[in-house]
């Protein structure tokens, strides 16, 4: 029988870093899954900057552990990993994602899209926890095992957690701001959807006591660069990320935070 009407569309607008992205699906269960996954970041009345139609297919059997492959042709981006395929045209603001019913594939696509958007405007996603205290944001950077989850878990009640895994950094005329993200790590807890000017970045190191040490400019820049999440290989974007990281490290204090894993470390973070 001829289908006379398209299945009803369910749309979920997910706003991270002040950038709303609309995800449209014909599957109401998947829409609810997105609303649960991005609780606190779903905006009912946001005007989306970008829109993605999500085509749900049977699981491919391929996992999310493969590397992301990306290319850009004539202004259109193509992302592929074992568990998803996506196309996106930033010029028209439209895109399409093909994946199975799961919240992880679309989460990866959102991260990739945000890295590209931020790269073009002098921001980035940083592999770091971040938290807000006294109206200022503090970032805690390091690779897996450095202590991002630990320091997030130890945060006292007056601290607002922005993320325990991926920090969202944007630049405005005044300086750099950190935004809360739903991109969670081991805590499996989304951050609060708030933002604050960045007061400092701490490079994490576990040790027998708590102390803060200066970091030479070159090392600070290297560490920031190595912890920036970026998947594209387009030379112009890579150059922009490099310039942004250099500016960021020259603008925001970068310190080494050696800490013993108990709550006293937060006495230093003010």
């Amino acid at each position, binding site marked *: 029988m001829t289908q006379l009407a398209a299945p009803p569309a369910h749309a979920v607008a997910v706003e991270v870093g002040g950038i709303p992205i609309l995800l449209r699906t014909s599957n109401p269960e998947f829409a609810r899954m997105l609303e649960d996954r991005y609780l606190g970041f779903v905006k009912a009345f946001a005007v989306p900057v970008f829109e993605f139609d999500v085509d749900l297919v049977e699981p491919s059997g391929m996992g999310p552990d493969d590397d992301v492959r990306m290319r850009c042709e004539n202004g259109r981006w193509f992302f592929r990993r074992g568990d998803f395929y996506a196309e996106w045209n930033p010029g028209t603001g439209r895109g399409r994602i093909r994946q199975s019913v799961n919240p992880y594939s679309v989460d990866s696509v959102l991260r990739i899209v945000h890295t590209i958007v931020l790269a073009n405007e002098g921001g980035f996603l940083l592999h770091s926890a971040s938290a807000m205290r006294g109206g200022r944001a503090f970032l805690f950077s390091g690779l897996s095992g450095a202590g991002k989850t630990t320091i997030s878990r130890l945060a006292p009640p007056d601290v607002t957690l922005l993320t325990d895994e991926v920090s969202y950094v944007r630049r405005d005329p005044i300086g750099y701001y950190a935004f809360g993200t739903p991109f969670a790590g081991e805590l499996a807890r989304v951050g609060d959807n708030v933002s604050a000017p960045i007061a400092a970045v701490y490079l994490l190191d576990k040790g027998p006591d708590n102390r803060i040490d200066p970091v*030479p*400019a*070159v090392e600070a*820049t*290297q560490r920031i*660069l*190595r912890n920036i999440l*970026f998947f594209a*290989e387009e*030379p*112009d974007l*890579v*150059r922009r990320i*490099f*310039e942004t990281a*250099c500016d960021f490290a020259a603008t925001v204090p970068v310190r080494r935070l050696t800490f013993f894993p108990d709550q006293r470390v937060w006495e230093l973070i003010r």
Partner: protein
Amino acid sequence: MTPKYIAHSRAIAARKLGDEMVIMSAVDSTLFTLNPVATAIWEAADGRTQLSDIVAGAVCGEFDVQPEVAYRDAEELVEQLFAHGILLVSEQPISTDVPQES
């Protein structure tokens, strides 16, 4: 000695921090940090000055190092940077002019 000219690849991004140069390949995002001596060579790599003259002027003239040792180390550095595609090397002068759009 065969003349050797060196120039920066266009597929890089570089920033001097203090007296060290941080360079990133725009092709594969590999990150390099040059010490002050290597930074002096990098800054003098204009495509028109022979490497031997760069070593004599920018290295031996500024740092306490024997010319033979300096040239040998400079050749090694140049080979490494060339292998990573961030430095161009030629027996002829290298044009570093950016093509103008017609």
